[in-house]
């Protein structure tokens, strides 16, 4: 249908009067501690939005005609008002897709979810076997996810999504992920790992190598029909003549944004940092005011300069990559993407300051320091 998407993309880059959809992290609480967690989740933040506050946000999103929300966290199903908010959102005409590790989807919940309309579910999985998956997501998490998928299938939920963060260790499993999704009648979604949240520490070990980036690009071209990508691989477009399907643009602050568990509004879920904070839903004027009038979003809606990438012939294809990826490895935003397929990112990282921005919100559970020696103590009665 589209002959020339560039005019449309230019219009979207200028920002819309309301988001088309947005991500809403409902809680920083999580039963898992994935090593690459973009929101550094684990412990609930005591400043979390109340149920009433959350419903007020949904009322605003209804008035703005936001079409759907992508709910995540942490683990959103941990919230006691999870179903209440789901039903409220759908009741207000806002579709819901939520992202979960599946731990709280038992047979009964699966049936309840299957009965709801305008609901999508995305189960996170990062390996097609427990060894690969659990290395990133924790022991037992593979079994948990598969169990949830079985419950959804048995309950007749219909097509859910399986969402994978592509890492160095699961790139070779793409065919198997596709087969797994097919076996459940589910849709596969693969997304890019960013050095965000706890990912800042694990990125250097986990992100795909240059050779693997070629592999991902080729695989998407050959097998990517009906595979979603969250439009997160457009930096790979510089690899060939054929662009990957999608808008191939960053929607952060223009078409989409993040609301975090305490009501802060960020450009996207991969930049939970003051530098990319637009405001708070608790500010006067609520979410609408932030979306329409925040300084940050106004800046993002200005034409962006190609900066260091100006002289590179690939800029039109790759758009200079992902600002979250650049920011957290310490590359300036008008510099190349750290995974620039032409290799410009490597030099930029070497030149980058040793003082990389650190994630500002860290809700990770405290690390238990193992006592080197356990001295048995017996308390006896005298």
């Amino acid at each position, binding site marked *: *249908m*589209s*002959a*020339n*998407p560039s005019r*449309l993309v230019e219009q979207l880059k200028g920002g819309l009067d309301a988001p*088309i*959809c*947005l*991500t809403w992290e409902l809680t920083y609480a999580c039963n898992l501690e994935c090593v690459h967690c973009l929101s550094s989740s684990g412990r609930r933040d005591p400043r979390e939005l109340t149920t009433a506050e959350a419903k007020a946000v949904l009322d605003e999103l209804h008035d703005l005609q936001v079409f759907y929300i*992508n709910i*995540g966290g942490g683990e959103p199903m941990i919230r006691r008002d999870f179903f209440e908010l789901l039903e409220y959102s759908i009741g207000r005409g806002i579709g819901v*897709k939520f*992202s979960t590790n599946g731990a709280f989807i038992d047979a009964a919940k699966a049936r309840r979810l299957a009965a709801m309309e305008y609901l999508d579910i*995305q189960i996170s999985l990062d390996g097609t076997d427990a060894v690969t998956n659990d290395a990133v997501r924790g022991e037992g998490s593979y079994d948990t996810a598969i169990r949830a998928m079985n419950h959804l299938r048995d309950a007749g939920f219909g097509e859910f999504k399986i*969402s994978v963060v592509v890492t160095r260790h699961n790139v070779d499993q793409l065919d198997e992920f596709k087969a797994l999704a097919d076996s459940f009648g589910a849709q596969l*979604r693969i*997304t890019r790992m960013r050095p965000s949240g706890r990912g800042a520490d694990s990125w250097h070990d986990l992100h795909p190598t240059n050779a693997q980036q070629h592999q991902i690009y080729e695989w998407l071209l050959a097998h990517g029909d009906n595979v*979603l*990508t*969250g*439009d*997160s691989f*457009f930096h790979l477009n510089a690899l060939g003549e054929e662009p990957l*399907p*999608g*808008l191939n*643009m*960053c*929607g*952060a602050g223009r*078409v*989409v*944004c*993040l609301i975090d568990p305490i009501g802060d509004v960020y*450009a*996207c*879920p*991969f930049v939970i940092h003051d530098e990319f904070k637009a405001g708070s839903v608790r500010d006067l004027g609520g979410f609408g005011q932030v979306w329409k009038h925040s300084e940050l979003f106004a800046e993002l809606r200005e034409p962006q300069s190609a900066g260091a990438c100006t002289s590179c012939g690939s800029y039109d294809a790759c758009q200079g990559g*992902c600002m979250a990826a650049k920011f957290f490895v310490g590359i300036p935003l008008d510099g190349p993407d750290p995974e620039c397929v032409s290799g410009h990112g490597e030099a930029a990282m070497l030149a980058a300051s040793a003082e990389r921005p650190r994630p500002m919100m860290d809700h990770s559970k405290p690390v238990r320091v193992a006592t080197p020696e356990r001295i048995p103590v017996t308390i006896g009665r005298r």
Partner: protein
Amino acid sequence: MEETAVATDTDTEVAENELVEELLVEEISIDGMCGVY
């Protein structure tokens, strides 16, 4: 991509129609768009 014909007397009408054809709708995939889960 449409190619506009070189305008000749006989071709002008066809070329004009092609030139004025507007793309009035465009579908886009919104699997999140880059920036959401």
